[in-house]
């Protein structure tokens, strides 16, 4: 088998896999739409499935960390912070651990970029895109909804755009990431807990449904 042939086979297999895959909350998209509310006391929920997520381990302050940041074009974030925007971001997960988040389909190229930058140094990068799905909660009442489920102080003086936290919503561990002032949040949750979390959020949103 020649190399070009193999690449074609891989590409075809990837296309089939993409066509067959399902977001864990895909079957509830219409329900999310129906139970979202707009207006001054509105809050909306939708799933953003298949985001590219790479778990990056690197020793802070090392030359390897610096070259990874250079290659990504983003500084590695300070504790509990996100660098970048919702399209290209690095989230702080721990003192030597970050989560690279990008749109669907970027995993291969980002893995290559980071691995090239890590060559000769320490650290690792692993594709964990299939680990979590993402819920987008936005609207003027989004913070009120989260506050029913979360013990963190989410008031703007304590938690704002560009902040992230790994914490509990209800009984599940999530990565909570505030995107903007509206406020809008991304909630990254293990796929198998996504239904439970969606139920909790929809229940917490119910009081805002009629304005």
């Amino acid at each position, binding site marked *: 088998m020649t190399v070009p042939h193999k690449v074609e086979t891989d590409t075809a297999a990837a296309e089939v896999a993409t066509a067959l895959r399902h977001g864990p909350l895909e079957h509830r998209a219409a329900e999310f739409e129906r139970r979202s509310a707009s207006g001054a006391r509105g809050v909306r929920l939708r799933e953003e499935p298949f985001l590219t997520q790479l778990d990056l381990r690197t020793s802070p302050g090392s030359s390897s960390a610096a070259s990874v940041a250079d290659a990504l074009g983003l500084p590695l974030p300070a*504790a*509990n912070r996100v660098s970048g925007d919702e399209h290209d971001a690095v989230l702080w*997960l*721990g*003192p030597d*651990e970050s989560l690279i988040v990008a749109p669907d389909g970027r995993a291969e190229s980002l893995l290559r970029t980071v691995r090239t930058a890590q060559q000769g140094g320490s650290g690792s990068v692993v594709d964990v895109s299939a680990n979590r799905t993402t819920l987008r909660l936005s609207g003027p009442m989004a913070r009120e909804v989260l506050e029913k489920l979360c*013990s*963190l102080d989410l008031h703007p003086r304590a938690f704002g755009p560009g902040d992230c*936290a*790994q*914490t*509990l919503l209800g009984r599940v*561990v999530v990565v909570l990431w505030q995107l903007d002032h509206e406020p809008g949040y991304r909630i990254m949750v293990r796929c198998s807990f996504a239904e439970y979390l969606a139920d909790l959020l929809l229940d917490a949103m119910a009081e805002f449904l009629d304005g």
Partner: protein
Amino acid sequence: MLLVRCPWCGDRDEAEFRYGGQADVDYPADPHQLDDAAWGEYLFVRANPAGSFDERWVHTAGCRRWFSLVRDTATNEMRPDIPRRREGR
């Protein structure tokens, strides 16, 4: 509910943590030299003070890092640990 201060993530609810027992229980330098009583002592016997106690915690629902703190077992008042030799542990 206790508020536990993770050295990385800040103040979080106790529910996000797991307790790891007494800090600084070192593995014996030469376990083969221990008799059963001394091995049992290492494995099972822990201090139980009414007062300041060095203990390990892990932030399981957050950054998943282990850290130490000093807790007063009578009042549950917690103080961040004085860094001694815990780097990398």
